[in-house]
């Protein structure tokens, strides 16, 4: 961490050096330690620090960008000048309405934990040791990663944006394997004390032991009970392939034609909220606009996509505060990155107990868009799939390939879990999701 004072000094320096009509500067600072393990030993262990300064210079309806991680006066001046020169090269963009005028300061949200910020490599090794020892005791092979770190984001602009946020992150991922099976668990939080290595290890051990000697099963439509890890994949894909207004405006989103209509089960509500501490909060976006709560789906009815100032300007609306900082190729569009799904009233055991015949699935892997309409996806199951018969886990089955519209999958929601899990990924994306029971899910192949 470099602290609020140093962040603001860098941003003030950047603005003072700019010759552009308007300038926006965004600083992202990250320190991360990550301890990786495989075959019950630590095999990779890293620590890194970086600070990335993003400059956006405006000349009328033209904008140019530059980034640098050289925060010396010379480095800042070079980047500021490049951004300005780039803006002058641009033809005018009639849809660009200028930098957003930011009047409201974002509310501070608790997201920083000193114990997490100061977590040492030795402390991470102790967390990993808990998992590896449990694996060895059961004759299993443990792999995974434990990461901790801090991130700071700060924005200033000549149109009034001025925001600073400091947060922390911690995570533990475990894959425990036998010769024929694997079990998975993942814990995420912005507080290291929330990461319970013992229970996460037990969760993965249980699935690895129970999953031994899986049997093949015929592909086809099955009722499924999905762990929150699998539900996280569904929400992540729906975000990536359609919750941003730029995708909707180009007609490529699963939301096209569905806005205002009931398109999913009334049990399904999905919203984005960057200021909710139950998630991984960052209360403002890369334009310094406070993040608004946006209802993407409310009781099955599709709401609105998320906006940045550009997409909002095209529709005469206000930005919802969803400009991302990490879309570094193509148009930098808005994204929903703090997603929540409403919970229900059933336990996981209750979902399995109410299923005559179906599959209990831990997570999905390598999922990719096959067709944008309906968010048609393909991917594999991984790290624990079990046949449910007469309300009980009957036996493990081999991994299956699915080809399934995620929108149609959420039409099939029959039961929603009463507990939600926070799942954070490396790129700053987080979901808070329950387990789900779906009446039907389409499997199209089985692996060897």
């Amino acid at each position, binding site marked *: 961490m470099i602290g609020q004072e140093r962040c603001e000094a860098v941003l003030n320096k950047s603005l003072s050096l700019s010759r552009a009509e308007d300038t926006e500067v965004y600083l992202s600072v990250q320190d991360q330690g990550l301890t990786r393990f495989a075959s019950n030993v630590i095999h990779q262990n890293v620590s*890194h620090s970086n600070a990335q300064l993003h400059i956006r210079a405006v000349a009328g309806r033209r904008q140019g960008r530059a980034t640098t991680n050289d925060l010396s006066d010379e480095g800042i001046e070079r980047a500021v000048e490049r951004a300005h020169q780039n803006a002058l090269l641009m033809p005018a963009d009639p849809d660009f309405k200028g930098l957003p005028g930011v009047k409201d300061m974002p509310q501070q949200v608790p997201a920083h934990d000193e114990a997490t910020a100061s977590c040492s490599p030795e402390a991470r090794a102790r967390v990993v040791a808990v998992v590896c020892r449990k694996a060895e005791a059961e004759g299993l*092979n443990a792999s995974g990663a434990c990461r901790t770190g801090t991130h700071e984001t700060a924005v200033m602009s000549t149109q009034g944006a001025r925001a600073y946020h400091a947060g922390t992150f911690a995570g533990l991922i475990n894959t425990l394997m036998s010769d024929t099976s694997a079990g998975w668990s993942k814990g995420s939080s912005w507080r290291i004390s929330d990461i319970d290595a013992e229970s996460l290890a037990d969760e993965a051990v249980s699935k690895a032991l129970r999953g031994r000697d899986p049997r093949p099963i015929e592909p086809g439509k099955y009722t499924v009970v999905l762990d929150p890890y699998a539900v996280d994949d569904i929400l992540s894909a729906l975000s990536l392939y359609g919750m941003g207004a730029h995708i909707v405006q180009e007609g490529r989103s699963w939301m096209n034609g569905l806005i205002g209509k009931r398109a999913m089960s009334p049990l399904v509500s999905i919203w984005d909220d960057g200021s909710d501490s139950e998630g991984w909060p960052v209360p403002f976006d890369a334009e310094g606009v406070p993040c608004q709560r946006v209802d993407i789906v409310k009781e099955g009815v599709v709401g609105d996509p998320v906006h940045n100032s550009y997409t909002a300007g095209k529709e005469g609306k206000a930005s919802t505060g969803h400009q991302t900082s990490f879309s570094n190729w193509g148009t930098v569009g808005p994204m929903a990155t703090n997603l929540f799904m409403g919970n229900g009233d059933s336990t996981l055991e209750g979902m399995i107990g109410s299923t005559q015949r179906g599959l209990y699935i831990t997570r999905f892997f390598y999922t990719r868009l096959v*067709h944008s309409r309906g968010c048609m996806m393909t991917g594999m199951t991984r790290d624990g799939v079990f046949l449910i018969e007469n309300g009980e886990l009957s036996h493990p089955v081999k991994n299956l390939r699915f080809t399934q519209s995620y929108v149609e999958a959420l039409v099939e929601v029959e039961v929603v879990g009463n507990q939600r899990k926070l799942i954070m990924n490396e790129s700053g994306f987080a979901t808070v999701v329950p387990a789900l029971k779906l009446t039907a899910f389409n499997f199209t192949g089985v692996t060897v």
Partner: protein
Amino acid sequence: MDELVARALDLARARGAGYADIRVVRTDQERFSVRNGVVDIISMDESIGFGVRVLVDGSWGFASSHDLTLSEIDRVASLAVQVAKASASLSKEPVGLGSPVTSRGTYTTPIQVDPFTISAEQKLQLLMEADKQMAVVAGIRSRQGSLVFIKETKTFASSEGAHVEQTIYESGGGIQATAVGHNEVQRRSYPQSQGRQQGCAGWEYIAGMDLAGNAERVASEAVSLLTADPCPSDIVATVVIGGSQLALQVHESCGHAIELDRVLGAEAAYAGTSFLTPDKLNSFRYGSPYVNITADSLRLPGLGTFGWDDEGVPARSMPIVKNGEFVGYLMSRETASLLGLTSNGCMRASSWNRIPLIRMTNVSLEPGTWKFEDLIADTEEGIYMEMNRSWSIDDKRYNFQFGTEIGYEIKKGKLGGMLRNCTYTGITPDFWNSCDAICNEAHWEMWGTPNCGKGQPGQLAHTGHGAAPARFRNVRVGVLR
């Protein structure tokens, strides 16, 4: 710079490292994007920093920083040793690296025209012209063209005495047209999907693409696809797969499967493992006798072309699959020594703040003997599929499913009607053993994959894959429901 490098290595050794290396990397990148006639990105980005990797008591540690000062060098070298000591607290066998590597020298990507000397105006003009040609076609909803240029200068030095300096250039570009119809969205790309074709090359690579000359065709195909017949549903058929799609097939089903770190479990929790276990080396029929796959880090303009890898091991060419037999892995010094072999130079880091991992170099399907026209004429019935639209493969690299942007019927030895939403699926060795014809050198091209994800923290590697169209029998196609 030499002072910083020497100080890091000396300090790491003094703090207890048995081995240490340092990479100092500066990356300059230019990006240009034109969308629907509007320039939406001109960006010039730079990143500089260093990473120190050490072995202490046989365990790895790594630390990095963007701050190239003497005090930060000291902090980071000391932190790398501290991290390695923490690794040693949960270790078994000490890491071995085999024989010392003492490479010295310099390497620069051979280019004709430095892309950073071409004006931004000229680059934008090229994209605007292509955009104009796509806009001629009625029914296109969105158009995009983009260019990227990268210059990476890298110093690698180790406590064994290696010291190499490299400058790697990359140039990439492409166009995409998207058409939207009733409940249908179709996209066509040129020269490659996923945004661009990219190679280790200069401006001449972009100039040779003729983006504007292909723009109208690409846009017309996107519109035609809206009303084309759908791919036949869930049938077993003969397929001819075009070079750019086959390049990704090689990447996913061979390139990742032969990474020895993932074979040995290093990626088990993330990207997965591999079915190509060490017992299969030199004793497994990966494909039909027509299938020859080579890993070659000397083969321009492949994105996996360099002078030395990030352990200082020289670039080279080696067979991976020879007449269908599996004969080679991609290796690091550590993993090679575990099999009693020598590294073949495949360790690369995506940036100064990432450790080197085993990454594909240019893993290519070698050309066969067929002319494309003859191959089609020899195919009584089947489907020709080209250019990737979606890809997915399981964690052992067995079960895959790909979708392509475009397809055509093959009937009685001739290409017929256009097909939309083509997909095919299979099991890797079954698929490659069903290959009975590969097109010749004239149809072979080196394709770039600049977005290969691996590792935690995540790394995006740039890899190359040469391929020509090839024919496969008894493939399951049309899996949409």
